[in-house]
């Protein structure tokens, strides 16, 4: 199996994970905006922290994609 074919499979799995994380972040944003408008400020920082954690996970996966891509170009 070529590295590129492995990459296609791997990126499909990553897509599913990153897509789910982005949907979760979208939900966190709607919760935050609703909390902001209703004055429930205590919800905002945990929601932002959760969203940032998901961003870090996504950024880590993207870094892996870049490294994988570099290796695939050199195949």
């Amino acid at each position, binding site marked *: 199996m070529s590295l*590129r*074919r492995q*990459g*296609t499979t791997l*990126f*499909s799995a*990553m*897509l599913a994970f*990153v*897509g789910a*994380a*982005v949907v979760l*972040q*979208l939900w*966190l*944003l709607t919760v*935050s*905006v609703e*909390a*902001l408008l*209703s*004055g*429930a*400020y*205590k919800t*905002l*920082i945990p*929601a*932002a922290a959760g*969203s*940032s954690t*998901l*961003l870090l996970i*996504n*950024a880590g*996966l*993207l870094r892996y*994609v870049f490294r994988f*891509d570099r290796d*695939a*170009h*050199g*195949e």
Partner: protein
Amino acid sequence: MNTPDEEQGCAGCQAKATPKWRQDFPVEWEGDHYVTRREMVKFLTLGSLLLASANWATVVASRLLHRGSHAERFIGSASALEKAGSVLFRYPTDADPCIAVRTPEGKLVAYSQVCTHLSCAVVYDKAENGLFCPCHHGLFNLTGQPIAGPPTRPLSRVQLEQRGDQLFAVGMEAL
């Protein structure tokens, strides 16, 4: 004359010779799937960055909105409150209607008048001993908790101070 690579059937030589732009615009389906999925992961991560930034922007916005809420403001006299049962005032800004009530136990409480359902103004209902929203018949008790109707979140509480006969709003409690 064949090069040594061609003689050995070097698989990677073709890829090495191909410029990067050409690898990003492949002809074969396999290469196309690889590129489109990789690009989609990049695009979604950018979206993730924007969503996290927007979440932190709500935190900043809450700080800006909440900043002036510790300013002290005279809201009326205690004698007027005893007479009417409730006093309407605006706090922390002129765009924020609030209501102060003396409970049957004699405790002084004040809340934002904005119903947490659809932002109608709540009024004091002496018979129900609570704050009533006439739009959709929501009812809050005098601790600000919703007890009937569509509202599910409590009212924002205003901190009060009584100095002699004068009443002052001194802050908003975050929910």
